[in-house]
C-alpha cells in the first residue's frame, strides 16, 4: 500500500468541520469584520488623510515623493482610476510615514475641520498617526511573526528531526527563554540593537521564535509516531525524505494558523516598547508613540477633568485595544475550532 493513502484524507477547507465550527462562532465573525475594517483603513490611509497631506506644510516631502503638486493631492489620492492612488496605497514613499506637524506647539488641540481627530502634543495630526499607524501595525505584526516563525521552524525542525542531545540542549534553551518575561527580554535586546523600528522588530523576533520552535517540535514528534510514517519507513524511504515529504507538511499547517494569530499580541508588545521610548523615531506613525504623546495630558487640567484632552489618549488607546481584540477574538475562535474539546 502506498503510504500516501494512509495519510488522513483531505477535504476542501471550506467544507471541513473545523471551518464550520469557526463560521458558526459569532465572536469569530466579529473579529474578522473588525480586522477587515483595519485592513481597509490601512490600505486607504493615503486617501483618508489626503486633506492633511495637502494642507500641512511638513507633509511636503511625502507629497513631493509621490510626484504630486499641492493642489492636486486630494483628487489624485482619492481617485482609484489614477495610478498615484494605487502607488500611494501599495508602496508609499517612506517620508509619508512621518506624521505631519501643524506647528510646533507642545499643547494638544481639539478636533477641528482640518484635523478631525485633533492634534496631539507637538501638534502631530492624530488621524494621520492612527491611519498610517495601522499600516505600521500590520507591517510590524506580520514581519515579526514571519521572521520568528522561520527561526522557530528551523530550530524546532532540527530539534525534532535530530532528537537526542541536540534536542535536549535546544529545549533547555527554549525553556530558559520561555520562562523569562518577554517584555523585559525584548527591552534589553532592542536597546542593545539600537533604537529604530527595524531594531525593535528584530528584537521581537529574536525573542519570539521560542514558542513556535517548541510547538513545531512537539508536532513533529506526534506525526512521526503516526502509522503512515512507519509505513514509509518500512518501505525504505530515507529519513530526510520522510521528514520533508510527510512530516513537515503535516505539521506546518496548524502552526501557520496559530502563529498568524500572534500578530495582535506582537503589535501590542511593540506598542508597549514604543510607549517606553524604544522603537520608531519620534513623529513616525505608530500607535504606541501616539499614546506616549498623550502621557502628559491624561489627567486633564484640573481636578476631575481627565477629559479636557480626551482626544489625545482615547483615540489611540482605543484603536490599539480594538486591534488586539480583533486578533484575539479570531485567535480564540481558531483555537476553539481546531480543538473542539476546550
Amino acid at each position, binding site marked *: 500500500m502506498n503510504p500516501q493513502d494512509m495519510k488522513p484524507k483531505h477535504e476542501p477547507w471550506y467544507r471541513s468541520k473545523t471551518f464550520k465550527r469557526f463560521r458558526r462562532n459569532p*465572536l469569530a465573525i466579529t473579529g474578522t469584520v473588525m480586522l477587515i475594517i483595519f485592513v481597509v483603513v490601512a490600505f486607504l490611509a493615503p486617501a483618508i488623510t489626503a486633506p492633511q497631506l495637502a494642507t500641512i506644510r511638513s507633509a511636503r516631502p511625502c507629497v513631493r515623493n509621490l510626484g504630486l503638486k499641492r493642489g492636486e493631492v486630494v483628487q489624485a489620492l482619492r481617485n482609484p482610476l489614477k495610478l498615484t492612488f494605487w502607488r500611494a496605497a501599495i508602496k508609499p514613499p517612506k517620508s509619508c510615514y512621518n506624521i505631519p506637524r501643524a506647528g510646533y506647539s507642545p499643547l494638544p488641540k481639539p478636533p477641528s475641520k482640518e484635523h478631525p481627530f485633533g492634534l496631539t502634543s507637538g501638534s502631530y495630526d492624530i488621524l494621520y498617526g492612527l491611519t498610517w499607524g495601522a499600516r505600521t501595525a500590520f507591517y510590524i505584526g506580520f514581519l515579526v511573526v514571519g521572521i520568528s516563525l522561520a527561526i522557530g521552524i528551523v530550530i524546532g525542525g532540527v530539534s525534532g528531526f535530530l532528537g537526542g542531545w541536540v534536542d535536549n540542549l535546544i529545549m*533547555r*534553551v527554549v525553556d*530558559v527563554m520561555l*520562562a*523569562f*518575561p*518577554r*517584555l*523585559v527580554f525584548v*527591552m*534589553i*535586546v532592542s*536597546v*542593545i*540593537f539600537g533604537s529604530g523600528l527595524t531594531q525593535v522588530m528584530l528584537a521581537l523576533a529574536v525573542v519570539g521564535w521560542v514558542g513556535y520552535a517548541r510547538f513545531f517540535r512537539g508536532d513533529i514528534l506526534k506525526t512521526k509516531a503516526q502509522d503512515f510514517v512507519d509505513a514509509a519507513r518500512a518501505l525504505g524511504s530515507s529519513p530526510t525524505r520522510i521528514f520533508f515529504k510527510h512530516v513537515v507538511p503535516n505539521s506546518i499547517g496548524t502552526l501557520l494558523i496559530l502563529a498568524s494569530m500572534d500578530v*495582535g499580541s506582537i503589535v*501590542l*508588545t511593540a*506598542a*508597549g516598547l514604543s*510607549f*517606553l*521610548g*524604544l522603537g520608531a523615531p519620534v513623529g513616525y506613525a505608530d500607535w504606541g508613540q501616539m*499614546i506616549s504623546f*498623550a*502621557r502628559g495630558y*491624561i*489627567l*486633564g487640567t484640573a*481636578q*476631575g*477633568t*481627565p*477629559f479636557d484632552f480626551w482626544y489625545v*489618549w482615547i483615540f489611540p*488607546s482605543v484603536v*490599539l*485595544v480594538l486591534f*488586539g*481584540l480583533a*486578533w*484575539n*477574538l479570531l485567535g*480564540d475562535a481558531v483555537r476553539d475550532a481546531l480543538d473542539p*474539546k*476546550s
Partner: protein
Amino acid sequence: MLNYIIRRSLQIPMVLFVLSLIIVGLMQLLTPQQRAAAFVKSDKQIEHLDQIIKKYHLDEGFLVQYELWAREVLRGNLGFSRISKEPVTTTIRKRLPASMELALSAFIPIVLVGVWLGTIAATHRDGILDQALRVVAIIGWSLPTFVMAIWLVAWVYGGLGWFGIGRLPNSMLIDLATGHFHRYTGMYTLDGLLNGRWDVFFQALKRLVLPATALVIVVSAGIMRVMRSSMLDELGKDYVRTARAKGLMQKAVIYKHAWRNALIPVITMAGPMLGRMIGGIVVIELIFNFPGLGEWAAKAALQLDMTTLLAFVMLIGLIMASANLLVDIAYVIVDPRIRYE
C-alpha cells in the same frame, strides 16, 4: 522524586550562567563609547570620555569583561548600579520589598478572580454568562498593561480623585524618615501595622489599589481561560457522571470533586502567569511612580547599564526557575498520578 528535585535545582545555576553569557555577549555588539552611556551623564563629560572608558574597562573584549564581572559576583559583589547610584545588592534589598508588596497584593485577587470566573464560565457552559465572560477574558487579554494603567490613572485617579499614586504621600515620607519608624519588611503596609501606624497602613494600601487592579485585570484573564477548560474536562469525566447518576446534589459534586481536580492545571499556569506579572510590574511601576525593581530595570535597560541589567536578569532568572521547580513539585504532590524520573 528527590533525585529529580536535585537535578532540577542544579540546572538553575546553568540557566543563570547562560543568561549572563547572553547579556554580556549582546553588549559586545556595542562600541566602547556606546557602552559608556550609563557612565557619562552630561555633555560636559564628553571631554573625559576616553578616560572614563579606560577606567571602567569598557574597551575590553568579551572574555575580559565577563571575567571581571564573574569574579566579583563569585565574591558576592554584584557591582555598582549606575541607575540607583549604589551597590546593586543595596538597591535590591531596598526595592524588592516594594515590588513584592505590589505582586503580593495583586496575587490573591488574581487567583480568586481567575478561578471564580473560570468556574462560573464552565458551569454555565455556552450560556450567556459563559459567552459574556469569554468576551471579558479576551478583552482583558487584549489590554496592554500600559493602556490599562493609563486608563485607571485618568478615570479613577484623575477623574474621581480616588486612591493615589506613588508609594506614600511626601509629607508622610518625611515624617517616617525623621521620626521613629522601623522598617521591618520594607513593605509599608506591613510595616505600618507592625509599628502600629494605621495612617501609614491606610496610605500605603490606598496607593496599592490602582496598580494592583491593573495587574489583576491583565493577568487573571489567562487563569480564567485555563480554569474554564480544565473544569469542563473534569465535568465530562466518568466519575462526575457517576456521582450525578447516584443523585448527589449537583453543587456538591462540582465543588467537592471536579473543582479540586480542575485546579491542578491552573498550577501549571503559575510560571507563565508570573512572567506576565513581572512584565506588567515593570510598566506599572513606571506609570504609577512606584519605585520598585521594575522601574529600576527599565531605566537600566534604557540607559544600557550592564551591571544593573545583569543583576536584574539573574534575579528574575532565579525567581522564574525556582517558581517553575516549585510548580513541578507541587504538581506531583497534588496529583499523585504524575511521576518524574
